[in-house]
């Protein structure tokens, strides 16, 4: 496979197209606007649809309509825009529609900043929208992994008929690295007989809906959907573990932060400290088992995020008191540096 140097945002767009996405609805917001710009160039050439909507709210609802009509649809935005989409995401989950939503996270809250951050973890994983629902959240940490995660996101969305979020950050979106795209010749997209494509007067009408006025009917539907979520928690957890077998301290970090932590771990190892990394790739379903197992063996866990500490709560839940779970974070768009992470490691060993 030949490699091509690509910016993160554009790699997402190209991967989506190669994964069969022909309908993208976007809206400008730094640091992910290149996704829309790329789609604007490519989609018309391949008979696809790129539409810059009037708002992120409209865009997510265009995705709702297109996904309900059976096509692979995607939208992308950054933090404030994702907040605007949260109602739509809840509707998409409530109507069991498959789609991919990209969040290239920037510093918040409010207008915040445009530099990278990870302060949308709660919004993504704990459900930014209303009601009982979950959303698969995939957090790549390299441009190649961004490409692979985009394919994965579309496949999981269709497999489980639900929204899947691809979560990057301003750094990953703007970084360039060589990537290779998987060969997709002969890959057929799944049939969607539930979609609203027109009855052709040959079947009963399909209805895409999340409104259920009868409480017991709605509860039954939600409980049924929960079986799917439990299955996902059992089968779809993805993470990377490095140097954890002999580790006395394990760091937990995801996305771009995990690469900075790897540099700090390398320095620690060079100085005789046995440090390891657990890098969640799926933020939901969260890799709690591997963390709870590790917590029983190590002196401490250090969670590092570009936020004031959000994933650390799930790490603490997973560790369940088996070892102390510390946190080190920078936020506001400040990116931690390996030396600072290394200093933190030394505090706890």
């Amino acid at each position, binding site marked *: 496979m030949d490699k091509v140097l690509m910016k993160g945002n554009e790699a997402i767009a190209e991967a989506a197209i190669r994964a069969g996405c022909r309908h993208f609805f976007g809206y400008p917001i730094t640091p992910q606007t290149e996704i829309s710009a790329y789609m604007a160039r490519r989609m018309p050439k391949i008979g696809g649809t790129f539409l810059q909507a009037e708002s992120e709210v409209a865009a997510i609802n265009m995705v709702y*309509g297109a996904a309900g*009509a059976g096509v692979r649809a995607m939208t992308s935005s950054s933090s404030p825009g994702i907040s605007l989409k949260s109602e*739509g995401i809840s509707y998409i989950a409530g109507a069991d529609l498959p789609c991919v939503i990209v969040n290239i996270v920037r510093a918040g809250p409010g207008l915040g900043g445009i530099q990278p951050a990870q302060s949308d973890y709660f919004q993504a994983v704990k459900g930014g929208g209303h009601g009982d629902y979950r959303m698969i959240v995939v957090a790549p940490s390299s441009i190649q992994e961004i490409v692979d995660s985009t394919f994965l996101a579309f496949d999981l969305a269709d497999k489980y008929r639900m929204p899947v979020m691809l979560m990057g950050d301003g750094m990953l979106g703007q970084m360039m690295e060589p990537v290779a795209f998987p060969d997709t010749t002969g890959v057929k997209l799944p049939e969607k007989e539930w979609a609203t*494509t027109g*009855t052709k007067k040959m079947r009963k009408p399909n209805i895409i809906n999340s*409104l259920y006025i009868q409480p017991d009917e709605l509860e039954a539907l939600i409980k049924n959907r929960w079986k799917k979520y439990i299955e996902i928690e059992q089968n779809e957890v993805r993470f990377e573990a490095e140097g954890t077998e002999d580790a006395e301290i394990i760091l937990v970090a995801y996305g771009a932060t995990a690469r900075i932590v790897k540099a700090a771990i390398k320095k620690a190892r060079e100085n005789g400290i046995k440090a390891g990394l657990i890098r969640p790739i799926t933020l939901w379903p969260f890799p709690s088992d591997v963390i709870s197992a590790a917590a029983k063996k190590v002196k401490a866990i250090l969670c590092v995020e570009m936020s004031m500490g959000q994933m650390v709560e799930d790490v603490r839940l997973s560790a369940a008191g088996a070892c102390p779970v510390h946190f080190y974070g920078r936020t506001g768009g400040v990116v931690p540096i390996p030396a600072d992470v290394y200093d933190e490691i030394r505090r706890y060993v």
Partner: protein
Amino acid sequence: MAIVFQKPKALSDVPLHYCPGCTHGIVHRLVAEVIDELGIEGSTIGVAPVGCAVFAYNYFNCDMQEAAHGRAPAVATGIKRANPENIVFTYQGDGDLAAIGTAETVHAAARGENITIIFINNAIYGMTGGQMAPTTLVGQVTQTSPYGRKVEAQGYPIRMSEMLSTLEGPSYIKRCSVDSIKNINDTKRAIKKAFQNQIDKKGFSLVEVLSTCPTNWGLSPVEALDWLRENMIPHYPLGTYKDIDAEQKA
């Protein structure tokens, strides 16, 4: 003897939940009659956003999508762009189209999105029990304008058909009413032309239908028709506000 009038096939057998005398039911039937007459039941997809007519997804015999409040034109855009050969319509109330969904309405129109919007203007929020709508008339009493709509506090009602007709995108915009047999038949002709425009790919079409809300207007269904004639039609003049066919001929 032959049947000259019966329930259209595109209207399902599910009894309508609307209040007695609510003219939503008439417009539902007109849309279904048009779908039957144009033979498009198999390729039509309707979008029912939040409002009294959200349950329309149970009332039409074609594929339907329920949409978030105000977002039907965006949902319809997604459906249309996914399968452009499908006929896509939205059925929206005045709160949905002219308040929370104003941006979606204006931009679908500005894009000339090839969809058909049925816009029910009854100057009130019905489903939630009679609150002021963007089309509530000055002085009209509602639950949230209990002393009558005051301009200095709540501004003016919006004439959507006129506003949207200033855009190049729409191919057809007409305001009708279902207060009389003549006007009901005229409404049906307008709905049929709007759907035909979509079939002929002429772009965005919208039919605004002045409609009653007896329950929340606090009137009997028959009185409500009179109230509509005496109060709404003067403020919302009936007529065609955009018709690219007429423009081309002129």
